[in-house]
């Protein structure tokens, strides 16, 4: 097991507001191995986008974000740098070069008054020091790489001349132009139709296999996570509630929130091969306001399994002792018992895969 490309430890981002300090991201830790994909999963307000913007150091100054924690990134040269502590000038040399990002909205994240060739060439000229003509030629190769037809012609077109799927391909070309070793993709397919989403995901997977880059994939779509992530980190109200390798997570989600998220998908209701259930499983209520978080577990007000202990204090994120690189964690007082069981089972015999993978779902 090589050194992770990125190791995030105890990342917290808070914003002062008129009504008090809002902790958007609290004590988030995860790693991404070289060439692997870690998915950050969560709903609106879970802190997944703030996490990515904090790592990229792209939060606006006016937000006066208070950031703490560490993000150790291993550069191409093999040095380890803390993305959160780097000087702005050094960060600028990394950003768009070794670390780059794809945003959700391909329309609003491309400059409407520059041709797509110029936009791709900009980063290439800055980071790779190519001249104008060479950079444009590079841009054309990038458009070929992301399978944009008639690249030689498209390179001179403006974003409004392209469809949504094509624009997202341009975003990918832009982000990949300097061969980053870490790509952060923030909901890259959410604005796209399903058939286009499938194309873009296949493209990203191909590029990852070819370049060996690491991917931080931010999404709310568990279907996409199941097929494109190696490790999954589930966020709720700014905190990690569960993290696990993808197969383990889907086979047996430990945290009641993860269980609920999987159970409430209408597609899950059908897959049992039974007649449709009368009602879908639903997580009741809604996320508490970040200004008045509950005293204990953030999910407790919506949890069907909540008990007195849940209301006392925020449960710790408990790791399950497991073979290296295959570690699971959950932030739930009830999951602790399960974690101990799992540890015991592993202590006795090597971990056997269950014969049938089935999500255990609370009803």
């Amino acid at each position, binding site marked *: 097991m090589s050194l992770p490309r990125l190791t995030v430890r105890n990342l917290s981002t808070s914003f002062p507001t008129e009504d008090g300090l809002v902790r958007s991201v609290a004590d988030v830790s995860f790693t991404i191995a070289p060439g692997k994909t870690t998915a950050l999963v969560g*709903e*609106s307000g879970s802190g997944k986008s703030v996490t990515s913007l904090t790592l990229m150091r792209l939060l606006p100054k006016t937000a006066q974000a208070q950031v703490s924690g560490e993000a150790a990134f291993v550069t191409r040269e093999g040095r380890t740098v803390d993305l959160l502590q780097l000087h702005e000038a050094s960060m600028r040399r990394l950003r768009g070069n070794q670390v780059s990002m794809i945003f959700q909205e391909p329309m609003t994240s491309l400059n409407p008054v520059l041709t797509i060739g110029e936009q791709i060439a900009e980063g290439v000229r800055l980071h790779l020091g190519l001249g104008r003509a060479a950079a444009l030629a590079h841009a054309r190769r990038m458009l070929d790489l992301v399978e944009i037809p008639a690249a030689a012609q498209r390179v001179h077109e403006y974003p409004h001349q392209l*469809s*949504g*799927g*094509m624009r997202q391909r341009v975003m990918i070309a832009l982000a990949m132009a300097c061969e980053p070793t870490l790509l952060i993709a923030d909901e890259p397919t959410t604005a796209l*139709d*399903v*058939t*286009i*989403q*499938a*194309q873009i*995901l*296949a493209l990203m997977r191909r590029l990852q296999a070819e370049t060996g880059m690491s991917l931080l994939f931010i999404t*709310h*779509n*568990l*279907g*996409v*996570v*199941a*097929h494109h992530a190696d490790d999954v980190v589930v966020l709720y109200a700014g905190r990690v509630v569960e993290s696990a390798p*993808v*197969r383990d997570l*889907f086979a047996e989600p430990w945290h009641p929130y993860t269980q*609920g*998220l*999987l159970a*409430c*998908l*209408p*597609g*899950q*209701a*059908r*897959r049992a091969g039974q007649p*449709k259930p*009368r*009602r*879908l*499983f*639903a*997580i*009741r209520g*809604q996320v508490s306001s970040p200004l008045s978080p509950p005293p204990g577990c953030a999910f407790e007000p*919506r949890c069907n399994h909540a008990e007195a202990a849940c209301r006392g204090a925020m449960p710790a994120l408990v790791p399950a002792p497991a073979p290296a690189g295959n570690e699971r964690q959950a932030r739930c007082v009830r999951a602790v018992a399960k974690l101990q069981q799992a540890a015991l089972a592993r202590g006795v015999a090597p971990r056997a895969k269950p014969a049938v*993978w089935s999500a255990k779902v609370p009803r």
Partner: protein
Amino acid sequence: MNTAPPLIEVRHLKTYFGKPDRPVRAVDGVSFTIQAGETLGLVGESGSGKSTIGRSVLRLVERTAGQVLYRGQDLGALRAEPMRRLRSKLQIIFQDPYASLNPKMRISAVLAEALATHGLATGPGERDTRIAELLELVGLRPEHARRFPHEFSGGQRQRIGIARALAVEPEFIVADEPLSALDVSIQSQVINLLADLRERLGLTLLFISHDLDVVEYLCDRVVVLYLGKVMEVARTDELFEHALHPYTRALLAARPVPDPNVKTRHAALTGDIPSPMDPPSGCVFRTRCPYAIDACAQQVPSLDEVAPGRWLACIRRDAILMKAPA
């Protein structure tokens, strides 16, 4: 099963936008029926015309050609006043709960306006009772009536949108992507609410969505659209078990199943949806269709009933049927 006259019948509906010499053919000759009590799903990607159909059915946009019959009566032939009165029977729930509520109106005023427009619950006491009843019906509390839209979450706003549609006791509701702006955990709450209300109030729904999982769960029958035309119509269980049209199959194959052990079938479509200003000749899907042959460019495939209640617009049906279902 289709012996009763349909509640809604759409015949050869066309809705074009823009200049008549080079129109955007948003809806191009669509026909379907909806039986009373039925939920019909309209699925398709952006630009397939599904929202325009929903709006054309309610005359929120004027159609270019074709008919929409409600209980046998042509809505297009109605003058403004009788149409306005009929609107209490025909309602809509919008996609974006943030944009579809007036930010300056309290929820009581939003619901009271709907009631007043159709002369329902006219006394002040009666009106407040009805508003409280409506809020409870959609899972909110009567005291929420005093609040403004910004005091609610997205899921709660969508409940208010539903309450507003239900205020005038409609028979038929167009639900235009009512879930797509909501988080997954909130989606399932609203799906359950819609299913409950449909049962309790005997509603007929035209459910517009791009999310096939939701359509499979909620709808009795499904119409699959592509570029303003109907590709396939089938009962939901038949469509999801054995889709016939290559486009339907591609749509089904493209949806990511939340299970890492289910292999995704890489029948991903190449290319983009063509512009509705300049649709391909013949079958509009042929430019992305793995089964397309020269003949597909020559003729527009007719929508034929290939089995009872099962409609398909594809000239390659024999070639497709020969192969094992995808």
